[in-house]
């Protein structure tokens, strides 16, 4: 590699590294701050004395969460949604992407189906027609509304299909000659070769279902059926209109339970923070695969 020794270059590189460190800190500090607030004494937080380190360290908020039935229920609903959503999406996308990866010569309606998929990805009826349909399908207060209601993830189908098309044709051909049918080829030959792309869409699906809050807000009429994000939104995000003028804000400080909310927010991102390091190599591959092709 090229060596750089000039004075100007050193100054530039020094500034560059410092700036990059600051930018990086800017990305973690808000998350860290939330953790610190959740571990601090309520009064110290209300007085605005908590910054980088907990003041009056206490686990009271986390003890309160463990005893909070609705929080735990919402957590379990989210877990159920992620598991069902991930298994079904992966299975359907895999099955769908395989025939679509064939040429029109091998599978004639392939292009028409592709255009149908692209169309349904780019155009939708909008919110109100979607809600009406979900209602008439009996998806109100129904976990399946959450699992399937987002619609077929067409982008994932395209991602997997593009991956299949780049696999060497000879592998499938030799399996065909050995007498394997299309199902056997898909599950015993293509599937094992596709772990990188399947892991990528698995990541996207898990994150999507874990983070989605809006459909649940609309489809669940009973708050007890909320998944975690919708629940968090209700307790920690919705701005109380009565607090909008300065005096009421000042007075209500200390009444609102900032430390408890911070703990809830932190716990709801914890699963993601834990699996995140393992996901990284997959989504980096996924996004470059999906966006810019060589």
């Amino acid at each position, binding site marked *: *590699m*090229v060596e750089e020794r000039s004075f100007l270059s050193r100054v*530039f590189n020094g500034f*560059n*590294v410092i700036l*990059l460190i600051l*930018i*990086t800190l800017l*990305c*973690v500090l*808000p998350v860290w*701050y*939330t953790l610190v607030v959740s571990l601090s004494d309520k009064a110290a937080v*209300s*007085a*605005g004395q908590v*910054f980088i380190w907990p003041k009056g360290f206490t686990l009271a908020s986390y003890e309160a969460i463990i005893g909070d039935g609705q929080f735990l229920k919402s957590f379990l609903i989210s877990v159920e949604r992620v598991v069902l959503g991930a298994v079904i999406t992966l299975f359907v996308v895999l*099955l*769908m992407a395989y*025939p679509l990866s064939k040429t029109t010569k*091998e*599978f004639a309606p392939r292009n028409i189906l*592709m255009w149908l998929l692209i169309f*349904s990805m*780019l*155009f*939708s*009826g*909008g*919110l*109100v*027609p979607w*809600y009406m*349909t*979900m209602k008439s399908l009996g998806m109100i207060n129904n976990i399946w509304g959450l699992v399937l209601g987002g619609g*077929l993830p*067409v982008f994932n189908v*395209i991602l997997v299909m593009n991956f299949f098309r780049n696999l060497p044709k000879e592998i499938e051909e030799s399996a065909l000659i050995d007498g394997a049918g*299309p*199902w056997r080829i898909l599950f015993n030959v293509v599937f094992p070769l596709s772990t990188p792309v399947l892991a990528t869409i698995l990541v996207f699906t898990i994150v999507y279902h874990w*983070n989605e*809050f*809006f459909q649940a807000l609309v489809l669940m009429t009973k708050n007890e059926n909320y998944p975690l*994000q919708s629940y*968090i939104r209700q307790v*920690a*995000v919705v*701005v109380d*209109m009565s607090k*909008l003028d*300065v005096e009421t804000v000042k007075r209500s400080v200390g009444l609102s339970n900032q430390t408890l*909310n*911070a703990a809830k927010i932190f716990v709801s991102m914890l699963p*993601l923070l834990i699996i995140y*390091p393992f996901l990284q190599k997959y*989504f980096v591959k996924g*996004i*470059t695969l999906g*966006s*810019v092709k060589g």
Partner: protein
Amino acid sequence: MRIRGITKHYYLMLLPGLIWLFFFNLLPMHGILMAFKEFNPGMGIWKSPWVGLENFRYMFELDDSIQVFKNTIFIAVLKMIGNLIVPLLFALMLNEVKNRYFSRTVQTIVYLPHFLSWVIVAGIMIDIFSYTGPINQVLSVFGMDPVLFFANAKIFPSLIVGSDIWKEFGFAAIIFFAALTSINPEMYEAAAIDGASQFKRLMRITLPSILPVAILLGTLSLGNILNAGFDQIFNLYNPAVYSTGDVIDTWVYRAGLIDMQYGLATAVGLLKSVVGLVLISTSYGLAYRFANYRIF
């Protein structure tokens, strides 16, 4: 004969996906009829009376709609610019660092906010920008009065655009990193032998090599000019900032599902979908023509 036998299996494989597509992507489209009807919940979509373009006419008469339209475009355009330039600059900066451990650590950390939901980010932001929160504490050190950030319509768009860039710049930079690693290192070596400084190499090799990717991404983002980011604004806004923060999607939510003006909300949603489809098709067309970009 053999081929035809296989085709049957292909249809079978497509079946679950097509059923899903039909019920949850395509079936909702028949509800578009509501845009041309005076929707009566008792009669259902089909039996409600037709009103032609009445809902669309009404939409243009509302004072809100022009403002909402302006807000949408303003926020979306600022986001498009910021979400292109910041990741590009960041990628170029990190590319100048030759220590691999350092750049890997930085990358891992800056990707993280992308994976947090807007509910979480909004919850954190409301704490940080609260009346007694850290930002106001810092302001008070400089002798400034505390600000009610989320009740101030003038500040609100900057909060929206800023937090969106904060959340997405790292993830958006991934594509630029990929483009940067594909630059042939021999070019740098040749330039160094010819005596080009670090800055010159950045301007003459790195920047031109990565520019096509930036232009491609910019073109593709044009299709999103009516998407100001529903999840984000929905979680951060309140009536005090409707004048600058209300966008088409949030307005449709309130008109349709809260105020139950089904026909009107469907009409606005439909207009947005149609314009959006045209814009996206155009930007993909441009990307295909000039950068040979293909989605499949």
